[in-house]
């Protein structure tokens, strides 16, 4: 009698059982699947954004801005440090590349200056770094050939700054996304300075993109009353002040209205603890209310008490959104911004202020958004293609190989079950190209059986008995099957390695499909044939 090891029988049953068990939750609604007892598998196939609808955004964090700001703040702390050491004669203090340089005129003071600058490095670069000791230093201070004292920031420190900026950005983006009520977003770092944002099922991608991408750095400034903005625009900007455009208002020529504001920050948005959209009690226009923390509230209270009657401006990302006159001291630590907001605009600004500012600008590099309608259409089309493809292949196999074709078809069904079981178990993402991969697998999966059956036919023709023909057919086809499948698997794995997004989904289903099809075609079909042989003991094979 033909031999089929007991452990193989058990393996086939165990694998098929788990395949069915892991596929089953996909036939339930999400809620019912979640309610299954904990010992049952309840994971469903994860649908890619191209099938369930949603936005895939790849954004770049403006890391170079952060580095520039930090180098400038190093430069600005060198000035008082030198003054403290009694060094007043120095030239050329400035940022060059990734370093800050200064020339101390008095050679006797150079040693003191070096020490002071080294101390700044310790405080501002090494002090805040979250890297373990050892390895490359974070900064170096030395006197170069031209007699300049150079504080150079190493690549390690630059990398540390970049990573921190990206982490901080991710944190803020997550807060903002959570506030918009998107369910199960994915926000992760990609490479050194990029973040990948995946937002399933959003309705208004443009609005969410706007919310995520806005830096939202808010500061309060006093207007400079010494010179009118018009005069300042003629070129007479007083020191310590600067011209800032209005966010909305434009004059007849289409140029934005300008304000002359003090550079000094009165209070900053960092001191905000809460912010809500609201309506003005008198005008009933949308406004944004805010509340400062203790420090901010005190600063704001003092500033407003001393300056009743003066104009101050609320600046957001380099533009003035509101410029009210201080009517009375604002002591409670809270206030409201009444710009020309729409209801949605007020909501969005309040959200941004609550979540805090981004450390640097965020630029979108790639966007792929699929609406829920198209996603559902794609699923429906994929399902139909799968089913019709399956029916065609099943009919063809049954016609070509008769009973053995039916065995192969049973194996094919298990193959599809195993693919879905595998997808659910691995929690791999099913995408539209992934569905194409499944349909393609349906067509190619029967290849292993075709190879075996053709070989059996040949062996029958040379006059073997059924059992020996089957034995020989399997034995001889197996190396070919492995050779043929491995080459496709190589292509699929490389596709996974280099591919992105939806294409990876194709590589995933194709790879799983190749592995499961080898298993089902060799093991499942063979088991069915062995069972049939034992029961019928046929003289002639029906292939």
């Amino acid at each position, binding site marked *: 009698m033909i031999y089929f090891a007991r452990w193989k029988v058990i393996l086939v049953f165990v694998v098929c059982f788990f395949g069915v068990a892991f596929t089953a939750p996909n036939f339930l609604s999400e809620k019912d699947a979640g309610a299954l007892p904990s010992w049952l598998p309840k994971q469903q196939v994860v649908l890619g954004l191209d099938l369930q609808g949603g936005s895939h955004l790849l954004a770049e964090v403006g890391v170079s801005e952060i580095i520039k700001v930090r180098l400038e703040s190093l430069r600005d702390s060198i000035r008082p440090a030198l003054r403290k050491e009694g060094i007043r004669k120095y030239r050329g203090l400035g940022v060059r590349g990734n370093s800050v340089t200064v020339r101390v005129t008095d050679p006797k003071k150079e040693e003191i200056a070096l020490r002071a600058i080294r101390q700044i490095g310790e405080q501002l670069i090494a002090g805040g770094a979250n890297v373990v000791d050892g390895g490359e230093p974070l900064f170096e201070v030395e006197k170069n050939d031209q007699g300049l004292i150079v504080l150079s920031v190493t690549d390690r420190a630059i990398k540390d700054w970049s990573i921190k900026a990206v982490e901080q950005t991710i944190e803020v983006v997550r807060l903002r996304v959570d506030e918009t009520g998107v369910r199960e977003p994915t926000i992760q770092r990609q490479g050194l300075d990029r973040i990948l944002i995946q937002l399933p099922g959003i309705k208004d991608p443009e609005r969410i993109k706007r919310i995520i991408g806005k830096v939202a750095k808010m500061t309060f400034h006093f207007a400079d009353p010494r010179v009118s903005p018009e005069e300042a625009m003629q070129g007479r900007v007083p020191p310590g002040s600067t011209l800032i455009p209005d966010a909305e208002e434009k004059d007849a020529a289409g140029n934005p209205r300008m304000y002359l504001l003090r550079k000094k920050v009165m209070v900053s948005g960092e001191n905000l603890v809460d912010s809500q959209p609201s309506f003005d009690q008198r005008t009933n226009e949308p406004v944004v209310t805010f509340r400062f923390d203790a420090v901010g509230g005190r600063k704001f209270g003092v500033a407003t008490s001393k300056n009743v009657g003066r104009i101050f401006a609320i600046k957001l990302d380099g533009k003035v959104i509101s410029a009210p006159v201080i009517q009375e001291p604002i002591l409670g630590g809270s206030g409201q911004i009444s710009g020309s907001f729409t209801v949605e605009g007020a909501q969005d600004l309040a959200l941004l202020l609550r979540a805090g500012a981004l450390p640097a600008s965020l*630029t979108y590099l790639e966007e792929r*958004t699929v609406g829920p309608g198209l996603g559902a259409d794609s699923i429906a089309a994929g399902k139909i293609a799968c089913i019709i493809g399956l029916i065609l292949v099943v009919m063809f196999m049954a016609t070509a190989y008769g009973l053995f074709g039916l065995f192969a078809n049973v194996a094919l069904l298990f193959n599809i079950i195993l693919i879905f079981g595998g997808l659910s178990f691995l929690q791999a993402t099913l995408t539209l190209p992934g569905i194409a991969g499944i349909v393609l697998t349906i067509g190619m999966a029967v290849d292993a059986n075709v190879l075996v059956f053709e070989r059996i036919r040949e062996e029958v023709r040379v006059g073997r008995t059924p059992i020996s023909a089957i034995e020989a057919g399997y034995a001889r086809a197996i190396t070919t099957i492995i*050779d043929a499948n491995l080459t496709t698997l190589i292509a699929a794995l490389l596709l996974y390695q280099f591919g992105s997004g939806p294409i990876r989904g194709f590589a995933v289903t194709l790879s799983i499909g190749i592995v499961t099809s080898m298993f089902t075609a060799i093991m499942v079909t063979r088991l069915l044939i062995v069972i049939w042989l034992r029961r019928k003991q046929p003289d002639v094979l029906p292939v």
Partner: protein
Amino acid sequence: MAWHGFNFIPADTKYSFLPYRKLFFLFSAALILASVGIFLVKGLNFGIDFKGGILIEIRTAGEKADIASMRSKFKNSDLGEVALQEFGRPTDVLIRVQRQDGGEKAQQAAVAKVKEILGDKVSYRRTESVGPKVSQELFWDGVYAVLAAIFAILLYIWFRFEWQFGLGAIVALSHDVLSTIGLFALLQLEFNLSTVAAVLTIAGYSINDTVVVFDRVRENLRKYKKLPLDELFNNSINETLSRTVMTSVTTLLALLALYILGGEIIKDFSLAMIWGVIIGTYSSICLAVPLLLYLSIDRGSSVGDSKEGVAEQAP
């Protein structure tokens, strides 16, 4: 008793393939030359994945989208080249906007502008925008993927077969890949990430098909030491013909279902795969095996010493 199968390809076919090899070579050489020529002259119609730009699919209310009026609205914008086409059904329109000068920010501004022009009366089914940075990266990733796949397959073939077979398989593989690219250039189908996936899968399928025939050739080389090579090759092709055709048919059936029913987005992908399966089947039979004739196969080194015409004993 049991239900018998039907032999679509009769057993013991004796079709002559090898005698026509010059014709096949000529045809394939012409196909490759034409593909390369068309590629050089027309170039590929790169999609936004590789070129950057914006792609928006909308569905309009009512019976039919008024593409003409949309087109005139875009004419007055400063978005550069904007192409509109019906997509799948009369209410659906696919809008492609060229990559904007001025980097990633300009690109995002253009997306907002397109949506402003189209208004909120239409429903946005798909919005894709790829900036210059990412499109460059995707392009090179695609190139590396194809090269790496061909290299890895080459390595595998080299490991499993003698060099003559490896060379034959690679010629067939390159033939299939190049002619697929030629087809995309000729029909100006959109060449995007899915196309790269299709090309890689075609490479896998082509090798798969070739390997099966080669396995048989190798087996017969061991079995029949004295049989003239061209006859031996011809027999090997005929012996595996039934399998080759059967597998191609089942794969084509599945792909046809995908092409006709799978939706607009993967139509070009399915078309490429259909072409790949057909050309891959042709190349294994008519190109890879006949080529072996010219690659001085060493018949002495094969293991076993069975006499001519006597089949190896099964274990």
